[in-house]
């Protein structure tokens, strides 16, 4: 019983997969594979492969999801499609920079396959640039091109790139299919240097840069240039900055013509559409009869502009000349630098280049990088050495001593594309130091050494004296004692010494005998002894002559002590 139950369950479980489809009444639909999206401008195409395509009545449907949506939504234009591709451009995506998820499945009746998910993508990243729309207008020696950017005017894909497109154009003469030239143009531009009455063909592709993306070429357009115009256009337009004005010049071979010049902002070229037609008349250059005109500097705001000139011969006017681009910055003047030089050794000179002097008007902050061209030569010779330096402090080594060298410099802009230079600075001359200076330095060094030795010895002497004074004092009394106690006996009385005093005494005359008495005793040590010894004598003395004896005695006493 149990075994039967188990077996039935087992069969049911095993049989379930193929039982259920059988119940629904269809084959197992395979989901589509290899779903991919192709986007050109605003055209969104979804493609896929399916093995069940050949089976009849199989349709496909797709759904999409963008961030912010909880559920999958039906993809418009891709519902119940019989083929393996569909166009869902009608999805009005608000944001082409968001990731989109897509999924497709096959359907047959009520039967649906599993969803096949297409790899999520960001439409902007996948989009390809389509062909631009081209309008042409012919002149005798030029063709005016007017292009609309790829996509429609309210293109969602390129909404933020309208002004970023550049166009690469290939133009050739119809007669010879050799490709004549390729140019990068703006959306409204002119191709010059063509021959009149010739058929030219061209094709254009749009490009985006950074990161670089190249579009598809437009179809080929052909146009005939007109016959040569009666009134030719001015050529070779030049503009220069001088003092406080700009001087505009052009070439024109014919007489009796008046000219007018117009200008426009350069940045307008980037903007597609009619903006680039905003040309303004230049004052002082309207109906001029000469081939030049002078424009005050305040006519142009700072920046980059374009100028064009037209000739007029009574009733007829020429086509506009080639447009000349110019940068108002050309009027800046580079001032000459200030150079100074000094001799360092006997064989080299140090040069330093300083900021340019201020002009009368205003100090020009030369904020762009400059390099300096330095001309260096000996005063007596004409041989010049030219050095280009970026540093402002440098040295010329290995020169001859006691020679005069001269130097001058001028400033240049660092970039080759724009050659601007200042005038030369003043010439500065300097003499190198005399030679053998090393020997003199040696002698000086020795002298200094000797001198310093002497000084050292003296200092040491003083030190020793001090040391001696402190640690090994002498026995001389201080001088103050001498002052107050100049008499010898009192001094001897005041100061006690361990020195033994030796005194030689000699008796000049004695009744008894002439003897030499040597007495060595301090007064305090053996006064009695002394007295007893000499008492006889002193007694004798004193007996004979009391005053003298006592005197002598007294005199004797202090003399003993020193």
């Amino acid at each position, binding site marked *: 019983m149990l075994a039967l139950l188990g077996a039935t369950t087992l069969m049911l479980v095993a049989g379930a997969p193929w039982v259920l489809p059988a119940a629904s009444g269809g084959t197992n639909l395979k989901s589509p594979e290899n779903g991919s999206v192709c986007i050109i401008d605003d055209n969104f195409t979804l493609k896929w492969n399916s093995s069940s395509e050949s089976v009849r009545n199989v349709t496909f449907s797709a759904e999409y999801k963008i961030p912010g949506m909880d559920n999958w939504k039906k993809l418009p234009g891709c519902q119940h499609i019989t083929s393996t591709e569909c166009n869902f451009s009608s999805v009005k995506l608000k944001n082409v920079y968001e990731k989109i998820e897509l999924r497709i499945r096959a359907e047959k009746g009520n039967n649906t396959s599993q969803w096949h998910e297409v790899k999520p993508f960001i439409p902007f990243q996948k989009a390809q640039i389509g062909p631009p729309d081209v309008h042409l207008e012919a002149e005798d020696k030029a063709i005016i091109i007017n292009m609309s950017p790829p996509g429609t005017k309210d293109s969602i894909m390129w909404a*933020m790139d309208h002004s970023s497109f550049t166009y690469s154009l290939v133009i050739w003469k119809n007669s010879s299919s050799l490709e004549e030239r390729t140019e990068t143009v703006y959306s409204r531009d002119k191709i010059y240097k063509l021959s009149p009455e010739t058929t030219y063909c061209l094709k254009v592709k749009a490009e985006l840069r950074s990161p670089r993306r190249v579009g598809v070429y437009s179809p080929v357009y052909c146009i005939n240039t007109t016959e040569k115009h009666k009134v030719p256009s001015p050529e070779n337009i030049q503009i220069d900055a001088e003092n406080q004005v700009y001087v505009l010049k052009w070439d024109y071979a014919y007489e009796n013509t008046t000219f007018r010049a117009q200008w426009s*902002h350069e940045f307008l070229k980037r903007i597609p559409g009619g903006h680039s037609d905003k040309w303004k008349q230049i004052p002082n250059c309207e109906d001029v009869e000469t081939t030049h005109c002078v424009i005050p500097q305040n006519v142009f705001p700072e920046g980059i502009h374009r100028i064009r000139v037209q000739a007029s011969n009574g009733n007829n006017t020429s086509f506009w000349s080639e447009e000349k681009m110019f940068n108002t910055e050309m009027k800046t003047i580079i001032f000459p630098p200030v150079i100074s030089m000094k001799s360092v050794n006997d064989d080299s000179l140090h040069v330093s280049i300083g900021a340019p002097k201020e002009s009368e008007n205003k100090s020009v902050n030369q904020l*762009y990088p400059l390099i300096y061209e330095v001309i260096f030569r000996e005063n007596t010779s004409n041989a010049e050495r030219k050095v280009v330096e970026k540093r402002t402090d440098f040295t010329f080594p290995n020169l001859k001593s006691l020679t005069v060298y001269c130097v001058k410099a001028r400033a240049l802009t660092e970039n080759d594309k724009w050659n601007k230079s200042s005038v030369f600075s003043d010439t500065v001359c300097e003499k190198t130091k005399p030679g053998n200076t090393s020997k003199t330095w040696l002698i000086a060094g020795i002298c200094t050494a000797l001198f310093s030795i002497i000084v050292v010895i003296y200092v040491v002497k003083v030190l020793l004296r001090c040391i001696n004074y402190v640690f090994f004092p002498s026995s001389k009394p201080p001088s103050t004692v001498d002052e107050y106690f100049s008499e010898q006996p009192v001094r001897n009385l005041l100061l006690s010494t361990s020195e033994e005093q030796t005194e030689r005494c000699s008796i000049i005359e004695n009744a008894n005998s002439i003897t030499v008495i040597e007495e060595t005793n301090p007064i305090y040590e053996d006064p009695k002894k002394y007295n007893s010894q000499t008492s006889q004598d002193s007694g004798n003395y004193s007996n004979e002559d009391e005053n003298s004896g006592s005197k002598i005695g007294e005199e004797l006493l202090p003399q003993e002590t020193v």
Partner: protein
Amino acid sequence: MSVDPDVIRKCMWPVCLMGLFVTGILSLDCNLLNVHLRRVTWHNLSLLSRMSKSFPIECLRESKAFELPQEILSDTQPLTRDIKEAFYEMSRQAFHIFIQDTFKSTWEEKHLRQVQIGLDQQLQYLEQCLEEEEEENEDMREMAEDEWTQSGAPVPQLSNLELRRYFNRIDRFLKDKKYSHCAWEIVRVEIRRCFYFFHKFTALLRRK
């Protein structure tokens, strides 16, 4: 503060003169790109500040956080090329915004023109230097070009995508608010903030 526009104009000329001495587009040395960019960005920044006398208080209510993606430049060690491309993307999007001439009444045309000219100069700088770099990688580019036209566009830098999303938010804000005076003022302040942010990172260009 009520300042006569004429006074502003008079004061702006010497300042512009000074600032724009630097911006010789045709004379650029790309090794010093950061020096020039720094000045041009700062110049454009100050132009944006001077466009309007003061921010109208009533517009504060409508202001919106556009979430400038600061992380794109605060990554450690971003490549010089990435920084240049980010700058270029920022410049051209800012240019795109300021050439829509639906603000005739908001600002004086002179000031607007100067901003447009300034932005164009910034673009020209970057284009010239990016072009030089591309020329160096010309061979690689030609090889890659064939692949691209077949398989679709290459994947742009992620940072550029973030920048695009940011500018897309600004663009949509303008459209939704129907290019009102307040909307323009808010956008002006936002782009000024963006320029300031980028100005700080011109220093990064020099280090590489």
